């Protein structure tokens, strides 16, 4: 997909857990707990920077940092959260980062990140007087902190797919995506702890890995992609910037941001480097560096060869 010379959109959506924003109401006049801040590469837009990290393995959580210049003081005060306040309340405010080139009927580009906010504060001393508001987010805090009373103990044979689906159902709001779980079963499965602990243990027991990513919960055999059937080619004609860099067990590839590159996606690389060309790669780590006014609107992919390793 050609990405150059197109308008870049970054939309940040804040969803408050309990509070409401001072300004704005819905059609019935009720106060809103959702605030959408739109930025694009046109010069009259707010300046938004978003840095998203999605690392491999479930234990290392995805994270994001967003900096928005020019927000109203009211909105800043509503959203501000100090780290020492974390854990005081049950709920967390949510930040959603949408980025891309095409907008859907709601005026949103594709979702790039969704997570809980653990710290948010402005910098009123900033030299350009735009009071940049910094929002820091971790993915899945609520799942990590969930009560571990959803234990599972089932008598008899249970298909592995059904077992993973049952554990995944404890991750409220996430859609289960399983790859290659068929044909295996578990005898008298019994899993305890938080949903994260249960998923970690079940995957370790049967040689799988998993990742909770935005709105999906992904499960696949170890060293295999989560989305095996969707192959995207990356080349200098198709968004690759420079050349792949060798890293342990794979490559690091820089690309112009494209919303179609997902965590766990299979990619084919075309470059002057023969090693990179020959592999069957999947995205096992991804960093999005998104700005609407500077020239950075890119992703750094860590791709691993899924023929490497094994049970």
């Amino acid at each position, binding site marked *: 997909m050609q990405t150059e010379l197109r308008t870049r959109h970054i939309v940040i959506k804040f969803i408050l857990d309990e509070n409401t924003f001072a300004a704005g109401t819905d059609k019935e006049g009720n106060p809103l707990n959702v605030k959408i801040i739109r930025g694009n590469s046109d010069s009259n837009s707010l300046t938004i920077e978003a840095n998203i990290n999605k690392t491999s393995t479930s234990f290392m959580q995805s994270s994001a940092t967003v900096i928005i210049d020019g927000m109203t003081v009211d909105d800043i005060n509503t959203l501000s959260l100090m780290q020492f306040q974390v854990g005081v309340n049950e709920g967390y405010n949510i930040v959603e980062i949408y980025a891309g080139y095409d907008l859907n009927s709601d005026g949103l580009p594709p979702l790039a990140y969704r997570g809980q906010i653990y710290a948010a504060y402005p910098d009123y001393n900033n030299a350009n007087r735009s009071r940049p508001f910094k929002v820091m987010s971790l993915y899945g805090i609520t799942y990590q902190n969930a*009560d*571990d*009373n959803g*234990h*599972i*103990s*089932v*008598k*008899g044979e249970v298909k592995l797919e059904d077992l993973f689906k049952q554990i995944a159902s404890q991750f409220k709001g996430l859609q289960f995506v399983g790859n290659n779980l068929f044909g295996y079963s*578990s*005898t*008298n*499965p*019994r899993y*305890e702890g938080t949903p994260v602990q249960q998923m970690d*243990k079940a995957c*370790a*027991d*049967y*040689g799988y890995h998993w990742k909770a990513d935005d709105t999906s919960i992904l499960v696949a055999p170890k060293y295999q992609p989560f989305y095996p059937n969707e192959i995207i080619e990356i080349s200098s004609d198709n968004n690759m910037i420079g050349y792949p860099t060798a890293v342990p067990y794979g490559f690091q590839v820089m690309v112009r941001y494209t919303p179609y590159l997902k965590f766990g996606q299979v990619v084919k690389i075309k470059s002057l480097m023969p090693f990179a060309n020959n592999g069957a790669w999947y995205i096992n780590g991804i960093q999005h560096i998104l700005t609407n006014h500077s020239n950075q609107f890119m992703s750094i992919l860590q791709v691993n060869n899924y023929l490497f390793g094994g049970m």
Partner: protein
Amino acid sequence: MNNNQSNLQFGNLQNEANQIEYAIAQYLLNNVNTIQPCKIIKVNEKSYDVEILTNYLMADNKPITPLPIYEISKIMVMGGIAGIITELEENDKVLVGFCQRDISIVKKQWDNQNPGSLRMFDLRDGIILGVLSNKLPSIYVKITNKGIELNGPKVTIISDNDTIVKAKNVTVDASKINLGNGGSGVLNGDTKFQVTGVQKGGDTLPVTIVSGISNTVIAQS
């Protein structure tokens, strides 16, 4: 400060020793099951469903009863084909040990097999090691320095061949003694007695059944 929480917060991982302590507490101690007292909640055909007796304590000290562990085996008191048969019952309290690897396939035949999964020290791989009780059983085989005692409402000795009692004195203390084929208490012509040393200077004195059930007389021949 609660001892369980000392130095285990993520923010305190400032040196190698703390990291090791954290790793041991978080991964080793939480994931390696050793032995646990349990209660039998269901007796299956060849296995038992049990429930762990020690509650889990949540962060706020709220107790939670652990979910059942299904279809675990028990250890047998036997060697070769010989053994003592006991039948565990619901509500029996037992000690369960947990194997290092997944024994779900191995225990079907107790033979060499691959582990059923990669899990280790898991509660599902439990084996009942013995019964826990503060009371003595009322039906028992008691073996002490003083001797062996067999106690039960009914004691049956089954032997396809000979049963020999070798003792200095044999006392049968009973209000009624039934002797006869098949344990029916019927003495007939096929019943043979040999009484040794009942007559001065004699060796063996055969005893013959001379009459039927109601008027049985043992006559000296």
